[in-house]
């Protein structure tokens, strides 16, 4: 037996967290335990876990392979992952990666000979305002810490020194070179937060001990929950939230109250908080969970009460390890105070919150994929209908809401509908945390009412272009999935309707500014690389299409483009958007479609410069059928020979040699 008794007990504890008969849900936490124990997930350990969970071994293997944070081969003691996604790329992630490669003497994808460091590139880690950055995983504990704003080779050296000094994991709060000049491993505190005054969602961020329950209570925290639970009916809460017009902050902007009202009556109900913040350019949920977790918990209490759920899950992306620890601690604090658990606030209401870590899959941000993942499967989206409100988690009526949406519920219930509607517009009421990243002077989070003009966000709060000599060329208004706006659209007000009218969507309010020094070909290529990497592989158009597009863009980027490739780049996305299983297909190509529509000239220029003769690509005359072509086929064994040919058989004798 590979799994020791203590490991088994630890896994069993995880299994107990989930409802009876749903122990499969513990598969990701259990694999984290296994990975911490062995440094990776050995097949034998997977098989033993399968036995514990009463699964076939292949079911565990399939899950391990799906999630990128789970390894089937050991990584180094410290696993350095450099975010190279677009927001980081715009601020020099490539440079940062090169520095690490030079300092560690390895290429990305490799491990140092002393097994100390592994280096990999990584998709968006939700640290876009503090780019470039890396996350480092400590193998023996499984803990993860972010190291941010690594602008220079010296900064990178500091990170390596810090790790080597053994002080890198004294805390898990983010680290910056500026925040810790003496290299003691000291935390840097929250990143830049600003916007209107007073602020609500981010009001406490930056205050001392903002994450502690005492701080929250001192601000009047949990009073709303107490009042609502003791004086209001759940239906009244739903009505108030409906009247407030809160729209989902995850990306689609669906009215939260309306979603709640679709809930089927069958019990039990579940509330699932979508904290799988993975949309490149988005890092708002992270700060709520890291620096004001009680605001979220109070929102969960209110929302769960409204939808009559006694069990709530927070599905948090695996990379947000610090936020995860803060949530777990905050839940313990709240439990101690009697705000969670049985008979909360002295009422008959019960509520338990389980924090469930994802393991590195963007697709799990899609609500049905999130539920599938939470149930312990690969994070594939499910068919709708039935919608989660009818058949969601474990086939029961379930509401899935984004962290920021839930946080808004707290404020709506505290200050009332009228107050809430005094911000923003009729159809996009309330305030919004805008995540500003890319080529601006002051990237960060800005809490502003909806409909603030894009220009105001970029100039007044963002301080204008990062380099004065490079004006803005393009802006992604709502996370990397959304269509690109050009520089002449900066007066667009940032509310759902206006951004839509401008040809894009407000999405998750991740605003990525791109200046004129950046190549739109590279932006397009890196965008597609992300979607190719993160496609779950379920449906044909997305699985095949994203790879094909990336291949073409890579070839163009590497100087092998032809003008007619641009027609292909225009044609292929048409058969992905609206044809794929889930909205991922749309997200994957909207950026490219708008990019090509607006900056086609730049693509043409790039091709003309890099491949003036339009040399056609060199492809094999015939596809290579086998990677081991020339070597004997694995199926070539004597057992395949057909026996007992009749002597009168006029065919040539059948000799099986494998293909």
């Amino acid at each position, binding site marked *: 037996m590979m799994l020791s008794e203590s490991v088994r007990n630890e896994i069993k504890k995880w299994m107990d967290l989930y409802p009876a008969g749903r122990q499969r849900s513990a598969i990701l936490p259990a694999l984290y335990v296994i990975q911490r124990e062995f440094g990776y997930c050995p*097949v034998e350990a997977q*098989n033993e876990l*399968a036995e514990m969970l009463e*699964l*076939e*071994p*292949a*079911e565990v*293997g*399939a899950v391990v*392979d*799906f999630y990128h944070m789970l390894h089937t081969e050991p990584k180094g003691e410290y696993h350095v992952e450099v975010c190279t996604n677009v927001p980081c790329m715009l601020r020099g992630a490539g440079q940062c990666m090169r520095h690490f490669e030079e300092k560690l003497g390895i290429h990305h994808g490799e491990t140092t000979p002393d097994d100390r460091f592994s280096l990999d590139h990584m998709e968006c880690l939700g640290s876009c305002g503090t780019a470039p950055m890396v996350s480092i995983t400590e193998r023996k504990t499984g803990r993860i810490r972010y190291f941010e704003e690594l602008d220079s080779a010296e900064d990178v050296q500091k990170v390596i020194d810090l790790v080597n000094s053994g002080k890198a994991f004294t805390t898990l709060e983010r680290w910056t070179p500026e925040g810790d000049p003496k290299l003691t491993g000291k935390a840097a505190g929250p990143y830049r937060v600003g916007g209107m005054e007073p602020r609500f969602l981010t009001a406490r961020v930056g205050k001392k001990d903002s994450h502690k329950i005492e701080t929250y209570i001192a601000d009047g925290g949990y009073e709303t929950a107490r009042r609502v639970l003791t004086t209001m009916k759940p239906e009244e809460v739903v009505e108030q939230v409906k009247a407030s017009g809160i729209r989902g902050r995850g990306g689609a902007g669906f009215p939260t109250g309306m979603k709640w009202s679709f809930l089927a009556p069958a019990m039990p109900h579940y509330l699932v908080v979508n904290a799988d913040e993975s949309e490149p350019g988005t890092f708002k949920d992270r700060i709520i969970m890291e620096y004001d977790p009680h605001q979220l918990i109070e929102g969960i209490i209110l929302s769960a009460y409204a939808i009559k759920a006694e069990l709530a899950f927070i599905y948090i992306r695996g990379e947000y390890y610090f936020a995860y620890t803060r949530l777990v601690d905050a839940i313990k604090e709240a439990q101690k105070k009697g705000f969670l658990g049985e008979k909360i606030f002295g009422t008959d209401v019960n509520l338990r919150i389980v924090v469930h870590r994802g393991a590195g899959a963007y697709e799990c941000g899609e609500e049905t994929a999130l539920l599938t993942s939470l149930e312990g499967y*690969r994070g594939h989206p499910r*068919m709708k209908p039935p919608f989660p409100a009818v058949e969601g988690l474990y086939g029961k009526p379930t509401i899935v809401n984004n962290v920021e949406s839930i946080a808004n519920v707290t404020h709506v219930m505290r200050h009332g509908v009228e107050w809430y509607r005094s911000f923003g517009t009729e159809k996009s009421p309330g305030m919004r945390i805008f995540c500003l990243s890319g080529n601006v002077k002051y990237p960060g989070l800005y809490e502003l009412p909806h409909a603030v003009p894009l220009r105001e966000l970029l100039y007044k709060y963002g301080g204008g272009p990062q380099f004065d000599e490079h004006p803005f060329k393009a802006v992604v208004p709502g996370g990397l999935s959304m269509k690109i706006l050009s520089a002449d659209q900066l007066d667009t007000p940032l509310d759902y309707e206006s951004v839509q009218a401008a040809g894009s969507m407000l999405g998750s309010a991740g605003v990525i500014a791109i200046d004129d020094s950046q190549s739109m070909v590279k932006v397009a290529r890196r965008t597609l690389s992300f979607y*190719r*990497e*993160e*496609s*779950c*592989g*379920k*449906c*044909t*158009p997305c*699985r*095949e*299409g*994203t*790879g*094909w597009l990336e*291949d073409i863009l890579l070839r163009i980027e590497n100087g092998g483009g032809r003008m007619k490739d641009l027609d292909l780049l225009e044609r292929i996305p048409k*058969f992905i958007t*609206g*044809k*794929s*299983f889930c909205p991922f297909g749309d997200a994957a190509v909207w950026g490219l479609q708008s990019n090509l529509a607006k900056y086609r000239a730049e693509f043409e220029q790039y091709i003309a410069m890099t491949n003036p003769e339009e040399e056609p*690509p060199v*492809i*094999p005359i015939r*596809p*290579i*059928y*086998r*990677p081991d072509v020339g070597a004997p*086929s*694995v*199926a070539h064994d004597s*057992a*395949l020979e*057909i*026996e*007992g040919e*009749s*002597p*009168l*058989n006029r*065919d040539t004798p059948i000799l*099986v040699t*494998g*293909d």
Partner: protein
Amino acid sequence: MTELVTLTIDDRQVTVPKGTLVVDAAAKVGIEIPIFCSHPKLDPVACCRMCLVEISGPRGMTLQTACSVPVAQDMVVRTNTPQVKEVQEANLAFILLNHPLDCPICDKGGECPLQDQTMRFGPGLSQLVEPKRTKNKNYLISDTIVLDQERCILCWRCIRYLEEWEDKPQLALFQRGGETLIDIQDGKPVDAKTSGNIIDICPVGALTNRVARFAFRPWEIERTPSICTQCSMGCNLRIDTRTHKLRRVIGRENMQVNDQWICDKGRFANAWVNHEERLTTPLVRKNGELQPASWSEALGLVADRLQAIKQRHGADAIGAIGSAKLSNESNYLLQRFMRQLIGTNNIDHRDGGDVAALPTGVPALADVMKPQYGPDPKHDVILLVGIDPSEEMPVLDLHLKRAVRRGKATLVIVHPRRIELTRYNGPFLQANPGTEVALLNGLLRALTEAKEDTSSDAHQLVANIKLQEAEKVCGVAAEEINKAAATLAGAQNPLILYGPMVARGEAGVQVRQALINLALYLGKPENLAYVGLEANSQGCRDVGLLPDRLPGHAALDDPTANELLSRLWGCTLPTRAGKTYKQMLDAAGGDIKALYIMGANPASERPTWAEQLDKLEFLVVQELFLTETAAKADVVLPGVSWAEQDGTFTNLERRVQRAPKALGNPHSKAAPDWMILDHLATYFDAQWGHANAQAVTAEITQAAPIYNGLTWEALGDQGLQWNPAEHSYVRPDMRYAPAVQPELSESESGLRLVTGTVLYDGGDLFRLTKQMKNMAFGAEVRLNPADGEKLGVTEGESVTVRNTYGALELTVKFDATVKLGVAWIPESLPGAPVGALLNGSAIVNVLIEK
């Protein structure tokens, strides 16, 4: 009455039941919507996106997947708009993008849905100029299935089959995105017993049949609809032949029997049909050696010797053993030959007269089936006594799993081993071997208690029984017995199946009585069924291959049957009951001087019988191979397999099905079994004059009134059931009677022996398929690990298993499904005849010696 819905597809109105999927509704009016992931017997996943068509909805006409959207009243569907066509082309372009297009060397080429769809709906031109992705090719995921990951288009059909039907998701998606591939967990090959069905449903050449690999191109083969003869299910299949060889077996739909699934033994284990060891000429023993002879020489000798022995010792000195592996026609003629031309009732087959059977079989297989679209099974509780469908009838196992998981059925299991079906948490009564009667009496007692019955006949029968005693004798907790009783008490339409394992010998008679009591008490005596294990176990009984029954289950002294048969055969019938299979073999060399053995191999079953056979004056064996028994024969008559002759077989639900001739070896002199007997009859101056097997089938319909009307033509491709309700004399007179638990010799030490059938045994029909050799049970004794520890033996160790009857050399294997205090040695293991340790009664103990 199902609600009907009318919708419009391409301007054509179609009315279908509510819940029908658009793709099926379209098919109904002949409109083909291309599909890959969709399959009529699997849940929709809508992942291939091939079936996108325009469907009306709240947002107007939108592209939706026809495979997942159910029809709605007044729905409008368009499948032929320019947009739909464009999307179909684009989707096929995506699917073909990384498909290797190695059609010239792909087994699927010629019958490949991807090829067909590409021709019909594809773009005709690739715009790909990047290199194709490469993945693993020729990759074994089990001993019988080859996976080509490059050809796979990720439709998930195989995964869904293993999940939804087999409940063994041993194939899964690995990696993700463009790298996604189907695979097994490293080192854990697929071992589901019906795994081969994933080959049939694979829409490309990703999963291919290792046994049939590269043996044909689909356009060269001849296809014959047939049935499987590996067990009593009678699954429908298709035999594909080319150049006088069986090349492949695939499943064929019969919604009354096997849906469209067949098991791996039926699919892959058929190398024996074309095997070079097959007998191709009659053999006659000369100077102690079997030597080739002509048919006339061989048959003449058989006739002469049998007549001589009959004259010297009387007709009852001659016996015949038929085979439940062979057709109704062969077995019918064998018993006619013995009764008419020899004049004896010494006619039987293995598990024939020695078994306490019931004549009427399972009411209907369809009543335990839960097809993809259809009502729940009619039986809500199924009691299995001494049968292990997973090893004995894998497709029944498939039906039962499905009935439990999707059809709200509950299984109650009585078996000495923790068989696979116990995983569904139904009541499991793991009775000590041989204590079934005590257990069933206890169960009836618990049932009367559950129904608070203190006065009925049944209560009287078991009033003195105490559950605590049953618990002690059987080793089954009273609580579990009560649980089973509660389940049965709540059943609307229970089904009770029992098998030969508990029906043999004297004890079997008592088990049958205990079951009859139970079935009567549940009010469903017609739902109590004996299930034989061989392809024609039912048919052999139906056509009178029994020492005490005439064709049609008539008693020997039944005047109507006597009159009918003597008129039909032109003779008077012998009236003295004959010897059973076991009695004949035990008496071989004694009272029995000559045996005619057709398709049976008793010499391999029990060493004592092998010795007895040597003492016979004359032994004729009609066989496919020179078996242990045939090697002892004076004359060996070469028969042909089920695939090489016309014949009918009757499955466990009394369905008579055709197995037409699919091939024949032109270089062989071997002949159909019925024809050999028909010719032999001429040497006895009888002119039966059967022109073909169909003529024999026709004669059976006259000889056995239960088969009335079941002629070859009438049976068709799906077979017909004979109806016991129309032939009430067949149904046994079931009455309450005490069932007595046989005495168990408490003094015996050692472990109690449990035997039984396993799917992958050492029989000829399995072992000759070389590719499957690693799947077979070895010569093993399986012990509970705790017993192993107590005995101080380790896994893999060689031991001698011994009792007063004999000894066997076996390897130890630990198996947690084996009960404490039990040694499990399956039947028909290669070189390990467990019969060596038996003397007929099922309850013996063995000692394990190092």
